[in-house]
């Protein structure tokens, strides 16, 4: 993280409401955070984040939704749960970060790490189609779209040569019934907008 000077640092206008909404929707009370910073100390991904988890918690308390949804942090977090199990106030911090990612997608806020959002989208599309992932198709679709096809072309081939790539997809018995799960979730999402 680059240290910001006082002039560069954005002035935060405290707003209420975001922490309350997260509590209502996901059950986690971010107001319990007292900035011990244990989460940030243990996080393996801070080197790639713009705000470490403890600052994310503080910004939620101060209602800085725009900054949060535009942050790299919410897309860089690997949900390894180290923060969640170490939090002395028992906040499931990784779940709170999940909830911000969910919020960013719902509000159409452009993701700071486009590839991560794309991967999740393709993965879930893949599951929606048949109820089970078809790794070959997912790999190909993602790599062609992100232009990593050449850079990573070897991976699929090496897995294939090791006999670790299925050539044909598998499905659940009733795909139509399975897709009802997605439809109902999407319907509930629509109601929240």
């Amino acid at each position, binding site marked *: 993280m680059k240290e910001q000077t006082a002039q560069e640092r954005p002035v935060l206008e405290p707003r209420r409401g975001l922490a309350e909404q997260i509590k209502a*929707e*996901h059950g986690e009370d971010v107001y319990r955070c007292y900035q011990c910073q244990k989460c940030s100390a243990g996080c*393996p*991904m801070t080197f*790639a984040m713009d705000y470490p988890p403890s600052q994310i918690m503080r910004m939620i308390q101060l209602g800085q939704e725009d900054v949060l949804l535009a942050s790299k942090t919410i897309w860089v977090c*690997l*949900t*390894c*749960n*180290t923060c*969640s*199990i170490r939090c002395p106030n028992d906040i*499931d911090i*990784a*779940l709170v970060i*999940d*909830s911000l*990612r*969910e919020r960013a*997608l719902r509000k159409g806020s452009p993701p700071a790490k486009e*590839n*991560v959002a794309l*991967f*999740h*989208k393709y*993965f*879930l599309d893949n*599951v929606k189609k048949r*109820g*089970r*992932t078809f*790794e070959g198709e997912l*790999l190909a679709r*993602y*790599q062609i779209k992100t232009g*990593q096809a050449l850079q*990573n072309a070897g*991976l699929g081939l*090496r*897995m294939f040569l*090791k*006999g*670790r*790539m*299925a050539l044909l997809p*598998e499905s*659940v*018995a009733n795909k139509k019934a*399975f897709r009802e*799960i*997605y439809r*109902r*979730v999407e319907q*509930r*999402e629509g109601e929240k907008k």
Partner: protein
Amino acid sequence: MKRVGYYKSCSLNASSNDYARSLETCFAKLGTRLVPIDDWNCCGASSAHSTNELLGLALPARNLALAEQQGLTTLLVPCSACYSRMLTAAEKIRKNDDLAAHVNEVIAPLRYLGTVQVKNILEILWTEVGADEILRARKHDLGGMKVVCYYGCYLTRTPGVACFDNRENPQSMERLVRLIGGEPLDWPFKTDCCGAGFSLIEPSVTLDLCEKMYNMAHQLGAEAIVATCPLCQTNLDLNQDKLRSRKAVPYDLPVFYISDLIGLAAGAELGNKQWRKRFTDPRDLLNRYALA
């Protein structure tokens, strides 16, 4: 024969089909039958919970409801990412009636009542199979093979659920290795993240996380890494292959599943069919210990 439910999952069905073979062979030797959930679906890990909490609960709940219908009360979930999501869904639904109703509306006409116990491979080996049975089945000894046990993120870190072992310094895998005559080494990275979740998205980040682990394992004199998760195993195996061509350090640590080692000790014949699927070939090491 004892029956245990089995969530086979996407990776064991394709990219880690060697883990499925390892588990099925190992449990046959231990007198336990793994009963797959009929018509299982992908649990959505990690993209579902990462982008939509309800979908992240509903996809596992469908599997739990199917397992319950089949009368499976104990469910082995071998992949750690799946384990964590299935356990989270099972516990949240069990503890919160409103949430249970909400999730059940989404998966209707299926309905999950909350009777399935979700367990990982180490728990199953300790509580369903047991040390006596592992010792009884033991035909070979690992002969003091020095290994580091790697638990990764999701085996011990499911928030809000009591953990089967110590979260920060678990020991259940080391104790299993000792049972079959191996020598587990104490090392600091057993629950660190190997970055498997980013192996496609940010391969360089993942490579850095792995390299740190290999170097420590080498420094301590480990001869192999033992894992339980198909994503961790593939990631730790594959990235050594990537580093080998670039670095002077010999990145040549075979990455075993715990079921490979317990199976070998119990006389399972895994053979070339198994080992040629690995990116770091374990056959030299196994030959040295007369286990191949």
